């Protein structure tokens, strides 16, 4: 496993967020060449498709494929929305780009808009990213001042307006259709699909929603070619990704690595192993919504979509949460599920009523007032939530629950007093 330096190449340069340095490093050349050469937008979309780039937000859908869903000639404007509402617990990769290479994102915005025929882009950031918001706004201002955005960019005839929009603290706004509602200024409930945003999105117009990291990949792919990207890492899920590691490792942080590496190598290598010489207990490999992996699975798994799927989990947002042997898994799950109950938007009955119920049961178990039948109940509640709601975030709330419950059942059982009656445990 070796570290890469594509997206992260400029992170540690002084004043990496300013336009001057970005342009000195060849920044915006790709965007401007796309404009001056009047590249065929469909050819760009095909190029991105051929590169094998998958969305970096969590679902891992082919980016080029998504772009190709934008209907032609509807007479309506097309919008690009950049999803920077990075809120999945454990995830802080987009933040690096926003803070340390904002212009790289904006160049990607320019190229993506050109490819999908959009003249207006919204960069949607969570408001807690104060520095990121400041730097993106400053970068947008710089780009306008330099004639990189606005009307008739460099005489190409291409117009592009880019706006920064900030969320107000809700996890749900990272769901793409909630994000659209949030930009529109209405309550950010996820929308029922169909219609999908590519057909009917922001303000009822065709809209592409891409993650920050996804868009930041675009200039590199356009500059170096689809084959270059397709050749990086795992062929089914190529490219480099920013992996953010948190939890009980000696060194936590973000590393850029090509897909297809061994998770164990990352933990043992750059992360310096488990802190204080402890043993590994579990890894949540792709943000808190992914299914947990046991040490023996961690030892074998390769970090790419097919590799991790083989172990029943997902790469999600590439946020790796490492838990050591001292971790109380019941306690950890209570913590996670409180997040999902708190962040449930409240639109759909199963998630609105189910997630707080799950928390109440888990808290009881954690406090020594559980019943054995609670474990079956928890599993069954997950069955009644998963796939029964508008958006996938309810599914994401169930996966850590069911996987931790399955793989660490003994820890739950150990906290349940034997032969206690319902009345005793719930204090009826």
């Amino acid at each position, binding site marked *: 496993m070796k570290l890469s330096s594509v997206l992260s190449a400029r992170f540690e340069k002084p004043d990496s967020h300013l336009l001057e340095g970005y342009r000195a490093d060849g920044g915006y050349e790709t965007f401007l060449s796309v404009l001056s050469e009047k590249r065929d937008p469909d050819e760009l979309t095909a190029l991105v498709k051929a590169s094998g780039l998958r969305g970096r937000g969590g679902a891992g859908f082919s980016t080029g494929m998504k772009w190709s869903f934008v209907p032609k000639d509807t007479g309506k404007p097309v919008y690009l929305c950049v999803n920077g509402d990075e809120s999945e617990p454990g995830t802080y990769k987009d933040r690096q780009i926003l803070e340390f290479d904002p212009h790289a994102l904006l160049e990607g915005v320019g190229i993506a808009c050109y490819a999908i025929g959009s003249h207006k882009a919204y960069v949607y950031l969570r408001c807690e990213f104060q520095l990121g918001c400041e730097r993106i706004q400053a970068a947008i201002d710089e780009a306008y001042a330099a004639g990189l955005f606005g009307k008739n960019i460099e005489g190409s005839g291409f117009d592009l307006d880019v706006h920064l929009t900030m969320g107000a603290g809700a996890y749900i706004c990272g769901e793409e259709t909630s994000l659209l509602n949030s930009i529109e200024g209405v309550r950010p409930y996820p929308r029922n699909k169909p219609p999908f945003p590519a057909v009917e999105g922001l303000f009822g117009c065709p809209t592409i929603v891409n993650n920050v990291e996804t868009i930041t990949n675009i200039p590199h792919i356009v500059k170096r070619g689809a084959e270059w990207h397709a050749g990086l890492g795992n062929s089914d899920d190529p490219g480099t990704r920013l992996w953010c590691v948190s939890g009980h490792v000696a060194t936590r942080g973000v590393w850029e690595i090509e897909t297809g590496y061994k998770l164990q190598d990352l933990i043992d290598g750059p992360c310096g192993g488990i802190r204080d010489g402890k043993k590994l207990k579990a890894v949540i490999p792709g943000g808190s919504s992914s299914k947990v992996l046991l040490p023996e699975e961690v030892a074998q798994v390769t970090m790419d979509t097919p590799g991790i799927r083989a172990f029943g989990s997902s790469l999600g947002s590439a946020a790796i949460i490492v838990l050591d042997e001292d971790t109380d898994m019941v306690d950890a799950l209570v913590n996670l599920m409180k997040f999902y109950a708190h962040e449930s938007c409240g639109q759909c*009955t199963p998630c609105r*009523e189910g997630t707080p119920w799950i928390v109440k049961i888990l808290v009881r178990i954690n406090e020594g007032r559980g019943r054995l039948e609670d474990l079956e109940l928890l599993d069954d509640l997950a069955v*009644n939530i998963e796939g029964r709601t508008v958006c996938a975030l309810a599914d994401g709330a169930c996966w850590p629950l069911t996987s931790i419950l399955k793989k660490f059942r003994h820890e739950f059982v150990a906290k349940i007093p034997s032969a206690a009656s319902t009345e005793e445990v719930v204090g009826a």
Partner: protein
Amino acid sequence: MIKLTIDGQEVEVAPGTTILEAARDELGIDIPHYCYHRDIGSDGNCRICLVEVNGNSGKLAISCQMPCGNDMKVETANDVVVKARKGVMEFLLANHPLDCTICDQAGECPLQEYSYEYGSAESRFVEHKRNKPKHTEFSDKVMFDAERCILCTRCVRFFEEVRDDRPLGVEGMGGESMISLGPNGPLTDPYQMNIIDICPVGALTSRDFRFKQRVWFMDFVDTVCPGCSRGCNISAGSYQGKLLRFTPRRNAEVNKSWMCDDGRLSYSDYNLTDRVRGARIDGQAAFLDSVGERLDALVGDGSGVAVLASTKSSCEDLFALRHWAESRGVTNFWHGAASWEADGFLKQADATPNTAGAQQLGYEPVPGDGPALRGLIVSGDVEVPPALLADLDFLVMQAVQESALTTEAAVIVLPARTAVEKKGTWVNSAGLAQAIAPAVDPGDGVPEDWALWRELSKKVEDWPSVRYVTAEMNAWLADRSTQTPLVAADS
């Protein structure tokens, strides 16, 4: 057309039809639903209408929004769907107070109904229930109980879709979400009480009706609102002969699912005391035979006599009255009027339900400079213009309630039924004839108005029931050739 299979049965529907509509309209399959409502559409939040499409049991589709597709295979009641439905019911009831015993919605509550069908007798929820405000005054008409609310947002969407307004919204997140008033404070919309009807649970209750009576003890009659010439279809609810409420009944052409609050609350105008019962001549109780003789003597050849009838009377009442008076030479047929302010939606300026019917039957507005009158025959619930009363030789009052006119001025007093005690036909301002039915019985000594004129006309054998009057009236209208016959009243 789109062909698909629902529960093994092939159906063909127009493009854009949802699965829920196709199942309901083509196959009579009632897929349970809360957030969906025919006249405000669906939000897709309640999740009880989930169905399985093309065997995808992992992600069920909401039938209220999913459009039918060619060759789709839909299952509305297989094991996966029924389990999901049970799951949703369980979630809805987890924090619901289950206070049906003191809830006004009990007995007409979809939450109860689906709970019987899909719910479980025992709850797996053993935690403490979530507490929310129990009685928030949304206005002087509407009370809100947040604990009973299932957040279907029908109330929010009623204002958005039907009234183009946003006085209500959802505040908070997740399980703490709650319907709440917006910054402009209490509801003021004159149609706000419709949200009580469409609320599928007991979260929104009528401050006028709440705690008055259990619905299963009440009698309900399908009829038409007497409040104005729109003719909104209603269900009139009463208990032991006393009206307790009007609620709208869906009629896609007239009022959809709605009615105005003024019309709704007008039920209380019909719980009258001091009724006129039986006939009187010169203040003395009299048999109809003597009334008939005296009337004939007073009317004479009919000259200088006018009939002033209420436009709350049924067409049959008006026809029978006209039939009697015309045969006695009376030529002046006038109708009364009452008005309130129209609101551009349902409520019409004409505050009576049958002006159009009266006019079809040849009644005209009271003329400004009418002929000098010798006698006036007033029939039904109508304001008598004072000018008509000057210089009269005689006044006949067929009235619902005693007044100075019945006790002092009238020679002959006859009983009349109120607008909610009649059977017959009203014609609304759009020319639509609608059957009305008696919601309450006025008790002894108040026959149907038409039946009283039938006796006086000696037509008992011709008109054994109101539909014979309707039939003769339609024939009469057809003879006048300028009129189209009214739709026959429901027998």
